[in-house]
């Protein structure tokens, strides 16, 4: 597609909608009287609606989406169940197991599938060239990115809710048979229990934030494989370096700063005082990483050719 046919792929005023352009009559745009704030907001909302509908059709008709979400659920539940099945509380010996966290172990694996989803929502278009069409149809790039972010996060959290609920159920079914009984201080896992609810709902939020982190990274880097490597590298770097750090202070700081180490503290239900960072503060660290990635992705998307 030629640049002329695609319209202004790189508008000088990226915030201008197609409607603005029509109304203002192209070159005379600067002379046109400024639209009221509410009108601009309405226009933005309707553009976002259009973008959401367009992105939703793309996601729905892409064969990978369903399999990625189903895969995320399957590996999360299977890993959590395997971890629970491999752990026993022997009679007589002290067992120091955080049963909620153990049941939700699968998030370590499931987040990779969610990250693929987040990356592909953006990079998939770059690899096929579809992105030129998308941006020609919807020149307000941040609105496109916002629509993609909303949908990716929504899907990730929907899959995450199924996955985390399933993991918790698997844990609740398996663990009592392995010695984790109420008599030994391990009441059955239930969402009615405040910390367990926080761990489960927090894990769902965690997966949503991972999708955002991946999406922002992909918007910045464009290439799918490179984005995937960057996201997973960012997640895994901190726990490994922390495991080898000989200095306790450094180890703690690394665990506080890492998106995965800090973010997954939301899963802890016992011994909270020994965590490197509080559960919600930890999720906040991941949110900060995701926001930084989205900011970088958004800025680059605005300033670059497609």
């Amino acid at each position: 597609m030629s640049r002329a046919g695609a319209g202004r792929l790189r508008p000088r005023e990226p915030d201008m909608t197609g409607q603005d352009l029509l109304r203002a009559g192209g070159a005379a745009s600067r002379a046109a009287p400024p639209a009221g704030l509410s009108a601009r907001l309405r226009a933005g909302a309707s553009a976002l609606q259009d973008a959401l509908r367009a992105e939703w059709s793309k996601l729905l008709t892409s064969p990978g989406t369903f399999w990625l979400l189903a895969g995320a659920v399957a590996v999360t539940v299977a890993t959590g169940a395997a971890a629970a099945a491999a752990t026993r509380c022997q009679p007589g010996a002290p067992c120091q197991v955080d049963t909620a966290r153990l049941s939700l172990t699968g998030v370590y694996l499931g987040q990779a599938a969610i990250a693929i989803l987040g990356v592909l929502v953006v990079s998939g278009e770059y690899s096929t060239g579809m992105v030129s069409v998308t941006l020609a149809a919807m020149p307000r790039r941040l609105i496109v990115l916002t629509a993609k972010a909303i949908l990716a996060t929504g899907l990730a959290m929907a899959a995450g809710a199924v996955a985390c609920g399933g993991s918790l159920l698997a844990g609740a079914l398996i663990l009592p048979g392995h010695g984790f009984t109420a008599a030994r201080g391990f009441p059955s896992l239930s969402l009615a229990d405040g910390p367990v609810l926080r761990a489960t709902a927090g894990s769902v939020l965690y997966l949503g934030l991972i999708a955002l982190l991946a999406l922002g990274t992909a918007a910045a880097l464009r290439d799918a494989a490179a984005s995937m490597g960057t996201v997973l590298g960012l997640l895994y770097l901190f726990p490994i370096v922390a495991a080898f750090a000989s200095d306790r202070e450094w180890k703690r700081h690394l665990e506080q700063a890492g998106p995965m180490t800090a973010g997954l503290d939301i899963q802890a239900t016992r011994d909270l005082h020994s965590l490197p960072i509080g559960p919600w503060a930890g999720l906040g660290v991941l949110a900060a990483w995701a926001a930084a990635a989205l900011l970088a992705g958004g800025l680059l998307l605005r300033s670059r050719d497609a």
Partner: protein
Amino acid sequence: MTAQATRSPAGQRRAGTASLLRALRAEWVKFRSVRGWAAGMVVAMLVMLAVGLFAAGNANIACPGAPGQPVRTGPACLPRIPIGPGGEAVTDSFYFVHQPLTGNGSITVAVTSLTGRHFGGAAQAGQGPLAGLVPGAVGWAKAGILISQSAKQGAAYAAMMATGGHGARFQYDYVNDVPGRPGRPSPAAPLWLRLVRSGDTITGYDSAGGSHWARVGTATMPGLPQTVQAGLFVTSPLSTVTTASFGGSSGQSGPSQATAVFSHLAMPGASPGGWVGTNAGAGPASPGTGVGGFRRSGGTFTVTGSGDIAPAVPGAAGFPAATIEDHLVGAFAALIAVAVIGAMFITAEYRRGLIRTTLAASPRRGQVLAAKAIVVGSATFVLGLAASVILVVVGTRISRDQGEYVLPVSWLTQARVVAGTAALLAVGAVFALGVGAMLRRGAAAVATSIVGLVLTYVLGVAAVLPAPAAEWLLRVTPAAGFAIQQSIPAYPQVAGGYGPPVYFPLSPWAGFAVLCAWAAAALVGAYVLLRRRDA
């Protein structure tokens, strides 16, 4: 085609070699001309260097100075660690009641009791070395007879001993350990021990009643001088109290002490009054209390000692000790980058449609795959080797400048660790290539390879999972390959926390073989699919 069919086997082989060489050249040109890949390889190695040097540079070792002096830091804290006959760092502190033994001879004794005290987990705040010890001999408390080449720290030796929980043992030159009779000596059931020197060999025997002797083991010690030191010894190693918590387990170590009673000491040619007590190796680097002594009444000797005669290993040595592979911790970061490049080396061809040209130009698909594997594997190996050599050489120096002791290992082990790390990266890249050829999609291939190679490693070493699950992961997943980096073996005769990230459940080469098997499986799967599928 008909012309080819009539070629001789040798001619076919030549043609095959020529076409493989062509494919290799084509793949090499592709590899080096994509700027992102070359840059990615360099970035991979730079990240590995940065992580490794950062890890080496934040050791922050501090140690108490002389009384009245400020706390010292840096190289002033480097402990003086004895080096054993095999070149390894050793712990050599014990109480020794000895006298010279010239020429061939033997020493015999009966151990009638072995008791002790050990660290019980309570913090001891400057109340002396024995404060906070609770009764009970630790499993590797040792009491017996010993023949030592000299009084020098780290000297060659052979010893027959009773232990707190592992029966009679014949140990020599720090790393060798042979089991004898089971059980712990008591006044009712004493354990008789004998060492016989004959030329360059020392043989250990044990017996229940002192009349029927069983040979336990023989040590050959070339260059053993005419006059050696022989006598009774007692020692008792660090005792670790492990506290399990919800985030894993943590250990706290403290000294222990053992006391043994000996009778019927017999050494032909020895002067009965010539027994001298030496508190060998007591000092800041010793894991012991530094307290020891002996009492003699008639033919009975009561000896108390603390420390260990054993290889020094991380976690049980009683001083902060690093290993050479601590500087190679960044390998996983490089592995992520080379996995991305390995996977893209083929998925990019599918994305661009170049694969059709490639396969039209060299229709033997197995050769294309082999050429790609050779190119990406060799390039990764060469760069990985350079980074590993720099890290081990420079990182070791930085650690020492920080006052952190780096456990010495032989040249052969160093070469294995350095080349093994490069090979780990290369095989990881080939694994990713195979996965990429099977999946064809970049994001999925990269995610699968990195989860397989690195997430398994994260879960294995970062104390996320319960220990048995983590160990299982490090046995069966590609992360087992990281075992090639382990430079200090786990010694059964030294109690220590032998867990990841320092120790792997599989031996170095077995772990590496597991990784190679995964890479081979990925390549075979890729070959089968590549042949069967349209491009």
